[in-house]
């Protein structure tokens, strides 16, 4: 990188310009990535944080796509699941988005109904007439342990507030006893208790498709169950598409810059070849230069976005983690290098004979 490093210093204005563009793109991609993850968490963390690995949906027809709003499972179904070989725990879970009121404040919440003794609620299931609130829900309603609240008009008491921050469809979670949940969450009931899904904790040996056929449910892994939340897919797809476009634009910008830059130094390349520089040496030099610019600018952009994301975490649903910072940064560098490589490839076609021409 003898020439490349000195070119970076010599043409610092031009390289500062492209670096600034890459910094901004990297910051935008990283922030969008953190926002996407944060929104996804706000959309489905109540499901993904469950101590279970699969959810069994009770859909009207076997080939219906799993969907929380239309799924319904009966006592008979969750009891059948608890006898399936390889299933350690099968717990009914009622899910309904409704309204909670306290001290004159009404907020939208997701009420999750669990049986007494269920392992699904953090720190243990609530008892009859009681609820467990997440911190976010308690703050929204302005209540604490021992206070009263009403869910869809049903008066209940807050037994405790937990630090966990589970949400579903951007609403805070309220854990309630499944029998209480029946009064505002059960749909189309035939008299017996129902729930929305069965949360399964398996040991990996369970024959899930066979059990599904026998029980009349549709079982999906927890990660796939996210698409059962209708808002998640549309939201996630929109933001992911934006990120993909930004990454593609970044590659084009870097490619365009290095195309112009390489055309501008064709004369130098011809001279270097005439002096005895191999094509491999020149490609390595130019690609190393592009890598330095990309890694430096992407690192700065990612750091800026990570810092901004961390600072805004209390007011925006952003999730700063290696997956939302390092992964998109690595992708940007790789895609940028591909763009640069396509531009730099013209070095192979430069004729050293051109060095004999006066310039």
């Amino acid at each position: 990188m003898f020439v490349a490093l000195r070119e970076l210093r010599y043409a610092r204005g031009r390289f500062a310009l492209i670096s600034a563009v890459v910094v901004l793109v990297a910051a935008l991609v990283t922030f969008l990535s953190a926002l996407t993850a944060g929104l996804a968490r706000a959309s489905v963390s109540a499901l993904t944080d469950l101590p279970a690995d699969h959810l069994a949906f009770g859909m009207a027809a076997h080939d219906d796509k799993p969907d929380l709003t239309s799924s319904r499972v009966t006592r008979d179904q969750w009891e059948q699941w608890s006898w399936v070989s390889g299933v350690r725990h099968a717990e009914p879970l009622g899910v309904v988005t409704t309204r909670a009121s306290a001290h004159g404040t009404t907020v939208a919440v997701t009420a999750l109904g669990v049986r007494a003794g269920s392992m699904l609620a953090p720190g243990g299931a609530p008892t009859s007439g009681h609820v467990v609130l997440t911190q976010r829900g308690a703050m929204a309603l302005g209540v604490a342990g021992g206070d009263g609240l009403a869910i869809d008009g049903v008066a209940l008491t807050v037994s405790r507030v937990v630090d966990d921050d589970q949400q579903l469809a951007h609403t805070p979670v309220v854990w309630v006893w499944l029998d209480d949940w029946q009064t505002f969450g059960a749909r189309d009931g035939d008299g017996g208790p129902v729930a929305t899904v069965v949360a399964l904790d398996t040991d990996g040996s369970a024959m899930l498709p066979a059990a599904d056929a026998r029980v009349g449910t549709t079982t999906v892994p927890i990660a796939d169950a996210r698409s059962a939340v209708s808002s998640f897919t549309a939201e996630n797809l929109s933001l992911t598409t934006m990120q993909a476009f930004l990454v593609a634009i970044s590659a084009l910008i870097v490619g365009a810059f290095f195309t112009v830059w390489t055309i501008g130094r064709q004369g130098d390349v011809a001279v270097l070849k005439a002096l005895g520089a191999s094509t491999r040496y020149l490609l390595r030099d130019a690609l190393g230069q592009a890598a330095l610019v990309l890694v430096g600018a992407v690192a700065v952009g990612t750091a800026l976005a990570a810092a901004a994301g961390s600072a805004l975490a209390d007011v925006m649903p952003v999730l700063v983690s290696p997956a939302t910072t390092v992964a998109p940064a690595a992708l940007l560098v790789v895609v940028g290098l591909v763009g640069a490589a396509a531009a730099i490839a013209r070095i192979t076609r430069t004729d050293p004979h051109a060095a004999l021409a006066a310039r």
Partner: protein
Amino acid sequence: MDLHLNDLTLVYPDGDAVLTAVDGVTLHVPAGTTTALLGPSGAGKSSLLAVAAGLTRPTSGNVAFGEQVVLTSSTSRADATRVRLERVGIVFQAPQLIASLTALEQIELHAHLGGRRPASVRDEAMQLLDAVGLAEQAHRRPAHLSGGQRQRIAIARALVGRPDVLLVDEPTSALDHDRGTLVVELLTSLAHELGAATLLISHDASTLGSVDATVRIVDGRLAEADSLV
């Protein structure tokens, strides 16, 4: 080491016809001497130099350094590049310096191209800069040097690594007579000192008082025999 151009011919396609730029040229330049190649524009001077430097493959004939044939019509680009790097110094018509490098770095570059640390040739590079009278300008970039200074840097760059052969393409074309004469004198003395067989192309015979021999080329053929002065 002597430079031998043996029956070199270079034919270009020219529309539907062909153009013979170099036509059976045989020339011998002894080590440590400078031979000037004179001729009108389009006579084939630069084509002959391009073939001698391995920048263009000859249609037939070969180039030998001493007894060793180094360039033929079948020599690969990679092999020709290696020959240039290890055994040939080239001074171009324009100095062709790299804008981002200082005078010293222009010379150190040769070591880096050869896979060595640039600093490993720093002493030699400073000696060469001193020899061309530019040791004081070692850390200046081309933009801060005059045309004559740039050409002298280019000469120093061509001589680093003590090449067997020095090929020089119209080094005085952008200089006035006096400065041109000084540049040719510098080249011939350095070539003699370093033992490089030097082939120098020029259109201006008045600056060539210090060369060892002159040869005239017309229509791709040598018009006069090699005549060592």
